[in-house]
């Protein structure tokens, strides 16, 4: 389970002041006072337009970024509560479009060296690699250099990378972005299977049909704040429409009109 309380993060950006026409730097909230939690066996989706703060939020949850304010806790299978940012990473599998692979290594070499960094025993690691190879259907290219692989193949290796230490929590930032239907479907079914194994999955997406079908709960982010959350069916029921897409548009336009 992962739990976050009152997370905030500010960044600097330069803006052109309209009165002088000069640029000046100003700070703004990328994420503002967000609290959330995701339980075991639950898939939580983050929805929101570009710049809403999804990536920043996920980076903070994955300990890639230190929040300016707020606390993040995760509890492991045996009931330990972990707050240390570095230790938390040992229980998280994080994937985004920016986490590139080591092109000069083969998939097997990369997984092996990651297993060493995670502190796994060599026999366990080798067995785990075989298992993952089976799950992700990588046997054909596991010993090829990653830079030589196709997009779909390297996406599979990317997922394999997050599996090596068998984490309790998966954090995926737009994992299906830019993939063909077959590859995207493989990822969706992977997330489903992890939910079946009692893992926690947190992910962001722009594909609302996918979110409606997959998520137990969704959070709608706007300007760094969570403006609405609930199960997809609840949101559809409450905000009308036939599907999550229509409900999402309704929520956003209500919020922009100040009526939410």
């Amino acid at each position, binding site marked *: 389970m992962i739990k976050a309380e009152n997370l905030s993060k500010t960044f600097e950006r330069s803006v052109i002041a309209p009165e002088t026409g000069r640029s000046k*730097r100003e700070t703004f909230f990328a994420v503002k006072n967000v609290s959330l939690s995701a339980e075991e066996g639950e898939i939580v989706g983050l929805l929101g337009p570009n710049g809403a703060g999804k990536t920043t939020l996920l980076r903070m949850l994955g300990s890639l970024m230190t929040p300016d304010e707020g606390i993040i806790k995760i509890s492991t299978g045996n009931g330990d509560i972990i707050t240390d940012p570095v230790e938390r990473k040992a229980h998280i599998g994080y994937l985004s479009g920016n986490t*590139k692979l080591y092109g*000069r*290594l083969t998939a097997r*070499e990369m997984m092996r*060296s990651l297993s060493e960094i995670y502190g796994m025993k060599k026999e366990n690691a080798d067995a785990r690699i075989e298992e993952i190879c089976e799950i992700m259907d990588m046997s054909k290219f596991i010993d090829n250099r990653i830079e030589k692989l196709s997009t779909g193949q390297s996406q599979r290796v990317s997922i394999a990378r997050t599996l090596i230490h068998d984490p309790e929590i998966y954090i995926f930032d737009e994992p299906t972005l830019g993939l063909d239907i077959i590859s995207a479907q493989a990822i969706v079914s992977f997330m489903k299977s992890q939910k079946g194994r009692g893992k926690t999955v947190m992910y962001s997406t722009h594909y609302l049909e996918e979110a409606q079908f997959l998520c137990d709960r969704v959070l709608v982010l706007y300007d760094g704040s969570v403006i609405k959350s609930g199960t997809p069916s609840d949101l559809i029921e409450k905000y009308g429409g036939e599907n999550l897409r229509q409900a999402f548009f309704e929520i956003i336009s209500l919020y922009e009109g100040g009526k939410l």
Partner: protein
Amino acid sequence: MKPSRIIALFKREMLDVIRDKKTIVMMVLIPVLLYPLMIVGMALIMNAIVSNTAENTYRVAFDNVFYTDEAKSRVKDELCDILTGDETDYTVRIIPTEEGKDCAGMLEEDLIDAYISAGEGGTYNICYYNARDLSAKAADIIRDAFEIYSRNLTKEMINLSGLPADEVLNPISFEKNDLSTAEESMGSMLGYYLPFMIITAILLGAVYPSIDVTAGEKERGTLETMLTLPVTNLELIISKFLAVSVIAVVSALLNILSMGGAVIFLVLTSVRMGGDSGLNINFATFVPGILFTLLVMVFFALLVAAVCMCSSAFAKSFKEANNYATPVLLLFMFASMSAMIPNIEFTRETAAIPVVNVSLMIKSLFAFKYDYGCFFIVLVTNALYAALAVIVLAKLYKTEDILFSESFHSVRLFTARRDMKGGGLPGLGDAVLLCAVTLVVVLYAGNFATVRFGFGGVVFQQLVIMIFPCIYAWYIKSDKKTLFLLKRPQIRELAGGLLLEISAYIAAFMLSAVLIPLFEDSASNFEDMEELLTGAPDIAVILAVALLPAIGEELFFRGFLMGTFRNQAVLQKRNTRDFKTGAFIVILTTVIFAAYHMSLLRFFTVGVVGLAATFVTYYTGSIFTGMLMHFINNLVSVLLSLYPDTMTRLFPFMSDETLSLTETAYLIPIALICCILGLFLLRAFPLGRQTRNRQ
């Protein structure tokens, strides 16, 4: 910090680096192929040149005069005998001059390689084209022939006078006799060249991988993947540092093996060819030296790896990292040449200077001088500097900031002007760069101009200081008002600044009275300048010495430099009205300003006056208060030297550089009162409580 994690990270780095083709080329192929090719190739070329000289036939002609004039004709015959004699190891063919053609024409058409023309009396000219290989060589041959001929003539003349020619020509005989053993000669030669070669090899081996593991990793996007792993910054840096060090050592070893191999090949071939082999050298005597050299190489590689990583870690891209690495490379290579400078000795002091110590240690090893105390210092200091650099790097290297922070520009000058956003303020890197450049220009060009042009040079020096920050501010399209604190001061602030200036002037005067006997130096700002200024009209002197520095130096130090520091504090979200932040910026600016005056004594006296000006400028936020204070300060000094009588009548304590007890007794209260009044006018009293609003 977990050692097992560092080892795992290190293994991954090594695997990654070794898989990179470019690294392998830089590390293995270049040294292994290049040196043998270079050395063997050079040997082949030299060989070819030597054998060519022997094989070639040189065509030499004599000017027409030699055929018509009888005396000259004899000279020609003598020379021909020498040139075509049996004792020469070359062949010369004498080309007779053709009908209707002069020698110059023949030389131009390449029908001959050189010719001899006769001038008045006993002068002769050897004419040739230096650009043609054969021609130049032919000229040398002819010159040698003339020398032999001239010696023969001398001998003949001495003989004619009845004296013994050999005794007159060589009354005594002497020889140089080298008593050093073959090992010593070879060692001294190795000690001369090896340090530079080893240090360069380690540098070249370290630079590429250090960029690859830092900026390269960022560029490839794998740094974010690293960030998902449970590792700390320190572990990451140490593992990268170890990988770079190992590669640097391995590549240096390969370099040296390859160089050594090529040299041995040369020696062996020259033995086969029957030359002087130098094989009577006992190579065993070099073994301890070589072992120690290997040891110091390992320690030095640690330092190089750490420094290279520091320079490349904060670069955004491979290209930028390359830019940063170049000055480091040049600096190290320059320092490594210290073994070639004869006067630098390997002592306990020089053993602590980075790079230089390694160079000197290798030199001393091959001179068979084993000072183990110094060796120990070299190894320990190298390890210490490296450790220090790694710790500092780990503190500064926040993976998160490097990946996600946008405001990561320390040097803005590397951006083209058209890409500048406008309204920007300089980064810290810019401040350092501009300081260094200005200082160098002022020191060299300014001093040169002062010596060369006198008064004009003084003006030029001040203009440089003034113009550099202005050009810079224009280039980055900065907000000049904010950067240079161009704000109109209030009368109250100007008056407060003046009062503080008076107290600071008195304090500096008292300080110099105390310090002068200690430093045996003069506190005068322009004693050395006075000479230059004599003859110039008084008003010009006042302008050059009092007004220009007040504008130029203020713009540079209190404006550009302090503005940059304050801007950095703002970026780091510090409150600039906070006492600690303000004090830090004011003191830093003052220290740089005082150090710029390049004199230990003036560091303190200028420091006192500078502190007052910096404080007032920072506090009022207006550069003009600082300018006024600076102007008044310099003006008093100028007037004192222009009109000493009037000034000492007005201010008797200025009559000499010492102070009597009574003078001190009334100066201290005056200074205190001025100080308090000034602070009061600035509304900085009581200190720390700031009521003034900044716009």
